[in-house]
């Protein structure tokens, strides 16, 4: 029975943060895209904290935006508190973060999907994948419907065999109050895709009216909030505050006393949880000498009094949750609206993926988001975007779109996943990016927008904004290089005003800007007026840290050299003498595309790398000789 037209180019399974970006990218690249979701009421749901961005994650959002994705725009339109993080450190490690009205966020994203040409959104549960000769054909759903497509992108998050835990009780589900899907797990396994199992958790939600904020420290947003998107001019939502409080020894005592009731410590949960986002139980056990832990109270929206308690993720029984909450200053009389819980779920081991996020086993089958063992909305969205773009390019028969580690955090994210795999839910951090001095939030557009324009993802409005920004930066660069100032009386006065030494001879404004005490704003004294602060900042970083930046550029050259040494797809590692079985197994599992990728696989020894390098070079030399 075919009620609907059942022929599509791309089918996206799931409408979370990965699914939305994947579907939008596909549709915006002109492909007929179908999104199937279990529950059409919860598109782009913020299942955990009501926030976008954070250290390293803000970079991802900026990059998604620079590539024509939706997350940045959606966060700007629905954000209720914006803050720049790490402002006392250098620009490369500063990140943007915002609190979102989670309801507005989901609503707006749903409406963007609905309005998008070529995009079809339907509520149906996918129960089976149709695969023939290791090629995608389509999906079967719970209502007996069959949809055909050339590509399928699976973005089912924590919903594959999801199991929710509160205390020692557990129940199947991908998110509190929702079901789970076992069908896809089964399908993937039958296709030979290896699954693993992870755990993650979420804190309780509180009734804000029962919090005594006078005992907490107010944390307002930035006075001049900066948006995520390069397109956003104004932030429409009213800005609100978060609050900070702390756990205390009494809280820790309660947790310790009840540790045996925690599913993790009682041995019910055996899978690994996120190392960099531990539950409060974990924190007490792992940092037993700490007397207190910071807790952030974050509003969940403008039209709700519900509050998210960041830093207190727990799966202890309900009575213990209340007891520990009420031991915290400001929360003595708090009412809990929803309990915290842990969720265990299946993920697919990401070393089985190509850099396009297509599975190596099945042509046209892509996996993106938490299903690949990541955590976080931003990590999910970034993968969704890459999978969506590549599925579309695949349908069009075009070259894949791959970002490498020197180009974007997105490149780092995907390379880490497919090369190193995941030991625990993967979270982005700036330290993962070896070229982070060059991968700043502020230059995400300069790094990426042209590339996205080439594949057709950048609309004219965004392109115009980009070109203007780039032009003004280039102009400024030229201008401050060429403008020289002499130690004239007039200039001496100006320089004294900005508390910097008078140069003995003529110097360029570029040289002046290199001084630590000089900011781009000071250049206005010499008639260089920079009205766009974001452009001024970029200019300043380029000049001030030229030495470090140049060094990173040099090491990128080295990196590219290794990346350019390609390893043939059908390469047989056991042919190389001197490789241990362990090394061969690791290389054969990942099937690295280049020598550079091979070098990042853990357990591949330096001598094996040298051996491989010599073997490859010799091979390409002999092949050239044959020609």
């Amino acid at each position, binding site marked *: 029975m075919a009620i609907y037209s059942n022929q599509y180019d791309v089918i996206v399974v799931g409408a979370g943060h990965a699914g939305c970006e994947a579907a939008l990218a596909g549709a915006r690249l002109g492909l007929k895209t179908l999104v199937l979701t279990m529950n059409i009421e919860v598109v782009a749901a913020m299942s955990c904290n009501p926030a976008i961005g954070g*250290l*390293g994650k803000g970079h991802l959002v900026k990059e998604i935006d620079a590539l024509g994705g939706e997350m940045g725009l959606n966060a700007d339109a629905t954000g209720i508190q914006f803050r720049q*993080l*790490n402002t006392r*450190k*250098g620009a*490369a*490690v500063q990140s943007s973060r915002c609190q979102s009205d989670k309801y507005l966020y989901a609503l707006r994203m749903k409406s963007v999907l609905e309005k998008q040409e070529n995009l079809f959104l339907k509520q149906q549960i996918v129960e089976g994948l149709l695969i023939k000769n290791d090629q995608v054909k389509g999906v079967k759903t719970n209502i007996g419907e069959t949809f055909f497509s050339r590509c399928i992108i699976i973005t089912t998050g924590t919903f594959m065999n999801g199991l929710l835990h509160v205390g020692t009780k557990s129940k199947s589900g991908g998110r509190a109050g929702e079901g789970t899907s076992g069908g896809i797990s089964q399908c993937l396994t039958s296709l030979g895709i290896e699954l693993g199992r992870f755990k993650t958790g979420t804190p309780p939600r509180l009734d804000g009216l029962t919090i005594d904020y006078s005992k907490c420290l107010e944390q307002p947003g930035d006075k001049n909030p900066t948006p995520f998107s390069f397109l956003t001019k104004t932030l429409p939502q009213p800005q609100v505050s978060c609050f*900070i409080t702390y756990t205390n020894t009494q809280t820790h005592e309660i947790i310790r006393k009840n540790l045996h009731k925690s599913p993790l410590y009682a041995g019910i949960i055996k899978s690994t949880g996120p190392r*960099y986002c531990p539950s409060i139980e974990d*924190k007490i056990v792992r*940092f037993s000498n700490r007397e207190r*832990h*910071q807790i952030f109270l974050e509003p969940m929206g403008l039209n709700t009094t519900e509050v998210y308690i960041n*830093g207190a993720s727990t799966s202890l029984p309900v009575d213990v949750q209340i007891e520990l909450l009420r031991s915290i200053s400001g929360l003595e009389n708090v009412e809990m609206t929803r309990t915290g819980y842990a969720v265990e779920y299946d993920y697919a081991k990401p070393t089985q993926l190509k850099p396009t996020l297509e599975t190596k086993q099945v042509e046209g089958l892509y996996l993106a988001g938490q299903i690949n063992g990541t955590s976080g909305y931003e990590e999910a969205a970034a993968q969704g975007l890459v999978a969506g773009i590549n599925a579309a390019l695949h349908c069009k028969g075009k070259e894949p779109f791959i970002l490498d580690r020197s180009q974007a955090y997105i490149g780092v994210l995907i390379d880490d996943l497919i090369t190193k795999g995941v030991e625990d839910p993967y979270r982005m*951090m*700036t*330290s993962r990016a*070896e070229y*982070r*001095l060059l991968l700043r939030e502020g230059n995400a557009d300069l790094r990426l927008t042209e590339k996205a324009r080439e594949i057709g993802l950048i609309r004219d409005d965004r392109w115009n904004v980009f070109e203007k920004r780039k032009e003004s930066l280039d102009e400024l660069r030229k201008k401050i290089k060429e403008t020289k100032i002499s130690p004239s009386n007039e200039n001496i006065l100006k320089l004294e005003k900005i508390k910097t030494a008078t140069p003995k001879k003529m110097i360029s404004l570029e040289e002046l800007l290199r001084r630590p005490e000089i900011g781009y704003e000071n250049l206005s004294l010499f008639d260089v007026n920079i009205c766009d602060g974001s452009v001024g900042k970029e200019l300043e970083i380029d000049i001030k*840290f030229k030495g*470090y930046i140049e*060094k*990173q550029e040099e090491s990128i050259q080295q990196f590219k*050299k290794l990346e350019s040494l390609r390893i043939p797809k059908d390469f047989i590692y056991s*042919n*190389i*003498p*001197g490789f*241990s079985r362990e090394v061969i197994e690791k290389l054969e599992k990942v099937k690295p595309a280049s020598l550079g990728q091979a070098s990042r696989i853990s357990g591949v*020894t*330096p*001598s*094996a790398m*040298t*051996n491989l*390098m*010599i*073997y490859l*070079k*010799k091979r390409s*030399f002999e092949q050239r000789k044959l020609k």
Partner: protein
Amino acid sequence: MLFHLSQIHKTDDTICALATPIGVSALGIVRLSGSKALAIVENLTKLSQPLKSHEIIKTTIKNPKTKERVDEVCLSYFKNPKSYTGEDMIEIYAHGNPHILNDILHLCVQNGGRLAKPGEFSSRAFLNGKMDLTQAEAVSGLIHSKSSLTRKLAHKQLKGEFFGILKELKEALVQTLSHIEAHLDFETEGDVKEFSQDGFLLNKTENLQKKVEGLTTSYKQNQKLMQGLKVVFVGKPNVGKSSLFNAFLNEERAIVTEVPGTTRDVLYETVFFDQSEIEILDTAGVHKTEDVVEKQGIERTKKAINSADIIFVVVHAHEDFQKEDHEILTWLHDKKEHCVLLLNKADLGKRNTPQIFFQNSFYVSAKSGEGIDELKRFLKENYLEKEINDAEFIVTHQRHYEILEKTNEKIQSLKEGIQNKISLEYLACDVSEALHLLGEITGETTSEEVIQKIFSEFCIGK
């Protein structure tokens, strides 16, 4: 990419080479390494029983085509991976006749082997993960070592001691880096305390610097010793330099005549002294001359003085310092502590008393042999018997020294960065680069060009 492909060794064939020097000797060794080693040797020997690993057997090598006997030999077989290269290896111990050894090698090549390039056995050992680069370099160091000290150091390095030191340095750097990264990525979450201004990072950095500088200093201080000691004889004409030189060498090396100025050039000889190599230079006599050739000789003497580790200043024992002796002293001012006064011809009388200019002086006689043994003992005790305790390590390779110097620059830049309160992500760059550099020493981050260069310094057969 600039790259000499012709230099890349093939790694999947079987190599063979002579492991002992060419020339008549009691024994000569041919070694083979590679998957075909066993097959090749079995073809040449027609053994009735298969070879067992790590056993020595006696057999006959015959030319498989002509059935002609080549030699009676002993064989040992080392099955992979328990061999020097990590591949199947066979060593053939034959009689040390160059023709026999050549024939054996020739037969190995005819039956599927390939003549090895210098260092190819060791480079295979490295590629097969049998040793890291510092160990491979130690093997080369051991072969070329010039003193008991350098041998001892090469053994230490071969045992992996240097690798261990580098590992410690790297661990300290990694710790520093993770400290920095934790502050960059987690400070805002309140789980990491505000970066301490108590000098923790500076302390750690200074400790690191001390360690790295200790290593570079050890190289600089002991470099002379590594390369062998250089001793120079200087003195006015006919003072007996060449006779002393000869007495030292126990042979008539320099031409000795009564005509002043016979030695017009710098003569040198390398001798083994208590298992250490020293180079001894005899120089032209120093006096005012119009002779162009002799003038050049004097210039060369000055050069030799500058490059010397020890300068033996020869004067007559039976007469006071002459004008020419004093002139020589003016050249030696900068090298005062390296000078030893030799009062020669002590058999003719001992009028000249030792001067304050010299810390050490000896009455010697080339003719009677007086004082020569004493002088040799002095050399040995003061210059050749540098003892190192087991905890001490001396960097012996210039490559290591250069990388350590660069590492030190990064650590210095890190230190300055901390002092100038530069933001942490820039400091992290310095630490990462220092780590990368240390990896170059062990071969973890070394480019193939470096590896090729290292193994090209080996001799054939190793």
